[in-house]
């Protein structure tokens, strides 16, 4: 069975370590915050200028001056800091954020990522996505393995305009967890009940299947 959105978030959350500063993109990546293991602490970085993003406010706590990078009302955690956009991106660009989770339309075997623009559709802008992919050392892309028409999103070469070049080395899809190295996707884990052949069939880019592929386990 392909992973649900929640399982994808849960799997990604296993990459978190105690003391990590983490930036979660909009969409499925946001769900990762729900699966932070109880025995560790992470601080969420929001690129509009907040380190230590807390949960949504209660009605009483709502403050128009307190939003996240998705422009949603949020709170700050204990020990948070707040700063300018230039400073927020200095943290990203300077590699100070330990872990970044992003969605994408396509990823390829060169570590390229396309996530912001589909030609012919209205361009709304890249926001902070280009900064995040170029600045972070440790990025995981989280997306479905194929689009709704069944076309693979894991390619030999991205077809859509890039968000960043050569900057992605980890991809989690609903079917598998893969790393990118030496011009290929390297299969590391499959979703429960998903066969290696299923993954191969839906991966358009070169896929290397080592001997030690494991099946993910969820409670």
């Amino acid at each position, binding site marked *: 069975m392909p992973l649900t959105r929640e399982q994808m978030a849960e799997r990604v959350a296993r990459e978190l370590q105690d003391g990590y500063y983490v930036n979660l993109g909009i969409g499925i990546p946001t769900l990762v915050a729900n699966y932070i293991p109880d025995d560790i602490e992470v601080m969420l970085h*929001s*690129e*509009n*200028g*907040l380190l230590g993003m807390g*949960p*949504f*406010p*209660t*009605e009483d706590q*709502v*403050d*128009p*001056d*307190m*939003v*996240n990078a*998705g*422009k*949603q*009302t*949020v709170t*700050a955690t204990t020990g948070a800091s*707040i*700063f*300018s*956009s*230039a400073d*927020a*991106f*200095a943290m*990203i*660009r300077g590699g100070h954020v330990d872990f970044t989770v992003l969605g994408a339309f396509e990823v390829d075997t060169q570590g*390229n990522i396309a996530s912001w623009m589909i030609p012919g559709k*209205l*361009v*709304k*802008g*890249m*926001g*902070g*996505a*280009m*900064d995040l992919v*170029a*600045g972070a050392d440790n990025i995981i892309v989280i997306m479905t393995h194929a689009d709704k028409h069944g076309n693979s999103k894991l390619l030999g070469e991205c077809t859509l*305009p*890039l*968000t*960043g*070049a*050569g900057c992605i080395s980890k991809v989690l899809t609903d079917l598998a967890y893969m790393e990118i190295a030496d011009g290929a996707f390297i299969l590391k884990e499959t979703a429960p009940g998903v066969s290696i052949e299923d993954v191969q069939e839906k991966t358009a880019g070169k896929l290397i299947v080592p001997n030690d592929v494991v099946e993910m386990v969820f409670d």
Partner: protein
Amino acid sequence: MSGFNKVVDSFEAALEGVEDGMTLVSGGFGLCGIPQDLINEIARRGTKNLTVVSNNCGVDEWGLGVLLVNKQVAKAISSYVGENKEFERQYLEGELELTLTPQGTLAEKLRAGGAGIPAFYTATGYGTVVAEGKDVRAFNGKKYILEESITGDFALVHAKIADHYGNCIYNATAQNFNPCAAMAGKITVVEAEEIVAPGELDPSQIHTPGIYVQRVVQSKAEKRIEFRTITEV
């Protein structure tokens, strides 16, 4: 008062000298921390053919969206222009020029503009359409592109507190692009929720020193919320 008293008593006086064809830099992120009163005054003046530099372009009837509806904007330099139907329409019909700029690069371009740094290298955008026509250079084996700084004829800023000298403090994440915008204006105009006498603010806790600010005016507009998200208790 001294030559450092920058407080003016009307939005009209605050924006005296704004002319057709100028470049305006605006603080704010979405609808958070935007200089709404100053935007409204630009609308009232009807100044045309403006270039606006701002992370977003507001929504249809709030934020910079007010100037879009009014057809005062010729060009936008922004990182994200969703949530705005009028922007879409004008852009698709070729009425509006748009230069999309990555958010962090935009913030840094403004800070650099204010800091007298004409250009800097960044990895952001390397290998993408953003890099087209720009110098590429490797440092320590990694590729970077050269980005030039931005300044504006006017910068519009929203602060929580300003003193008469223009020293500013921002509230929470309403800070966002405001300090960057403040640095980048040839004439920087601050609308402040509260205006205090010099000496009221701790010198070490000022976000934008008054040297960047030419005019200060009392703000009055409501604050709107773009996406009200709530934890139910």
